[in-house]
């Protein structure tokens, strides 16, 4: 098991420690997870899958709660435009 995982966030490669969640990859990439209904940048609030602020699209599936998903190599993570 590699100690570092590389995945892409909005097309840019990001490296995190093995076991880190996708929310961490977003933080390391310096990106907010989503834009709210009125366009505010948002990131994780609760950290435990309750608040839904950490949602991103992972491998084409929208609305994934990134704080509960462990990074896998070559994951393609995207935020809304």
């Amino acid at each position: 098991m590699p100690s570092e995982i590389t995945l892409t966030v909005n097309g840019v490669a990001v490296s995190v420690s093995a076991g880190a969640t996708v929310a961490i990859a977003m933080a390391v990439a310096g990106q907010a997870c989503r834009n709210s209904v009125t366009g505010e940048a948002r990131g994780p609030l609760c950290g435990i899958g309750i608040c839904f602020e950490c949602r991103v699209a992972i491998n084409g599936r929208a609305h994934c709660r990134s704080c509960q998903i462990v990074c896998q190599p070559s994951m393609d993570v995207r935020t809304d435009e």
Partner: protein
Amino acid sequence: MQSATYDVVIIGSGIVGAACADEFTRRGMKVAIVERAVVGGGATAAGMGHIVVMDDSEAQFALTRYSQQLWQALRTELSDDVEYEQCGTIWVASDEEEMAEVLRKHEYYGERAVPTEVLDAKALHSFEPNLRSGMAGGLLVPEDVVIYPPCAARFLVERAQKRGAVIDLGRSIQEIGLRQVRFSDGSVLQADKIVNAAGAWAAELTPGVEIKKRKGHLVITDRYPGFLRHQLVELGYLKSAHSVTSDSVAFNVQPRRTGQILIGSSRQYGAEHKEVDRDILTHMLQRAQEYMPGIGPMSAVRTWTGFRAATTDKLPLIGPWPGDASLFLATGHEGLGITTSLATAKILVDQITGVKPEIPIEPYLPSRTAKESAHA
């Protein structure tokens, strides 16, 4: 409030009661609205919020088309939270038999100056790429609209209030009739006229009114902007709405302005409890997935139920209740309450004020059912 006499007391502030309040006050009458729960509750809060023309019968067409045009005229005045969206409806034909129905509707609406467009399979797919392949085609009705009904009801009630209508919230009624609304706490409102716009509960207030609750289920997804552009309805919907005895589901989806997908529809007779019936829900969603496989992986955020007010002949009850000169009905709109609310109010107030209504009112008169039961 208790010692005054109102020109009209309207029972219920769902979309129909709200529209009536708006129209009565517009014509200068002193109005009270009695609402036991919330403005825009009941089926108004639960339903799909579509404004559609329907051609089940001439009477249904006349009422829906008239009312749709009233909504069109109102659109610029509506507040933004009413979310008036002219997304149009596409009636989807899955085979050649349903395509024949498409052609029939096209001709029917064409004769009545309702613009529609026949879509072949290719055109349908370009309009709605997320419909599964293999559909025969469809009928686009571009003037159909989607709104957010609770805010529409509130908008209409507020307009009525600006003209002096008062609203009594949170009390339950013991009985209505003979120029009185009697509350459970014993107090009484006097009124020249009383309008029963209590929807699925109309028969509880006016015994003998033949209204049955027709339960529906809905599911709303998270936001998937661009997935769906028009309201989509399967032509089998008509078979479902036609059935008067059995439970049924039909494919009916709607894009909300938020990008959420609203998924229906179901009809059940005899179900009185509000809880979600999982059997019905699963069938409804299976049906929806058959038409749009792409909704399978979507995140469903909420499910809920509501009760439509269904009559025996699929037309609403709008007009005087025989045997009580003060009592009128504006109820029984089944799945067309939002659509026909404005026209309901117009023709009801026309009847009461002696103005000639824009459309013939005989098909909607409550006396039609009373006559039948008198002969039973």
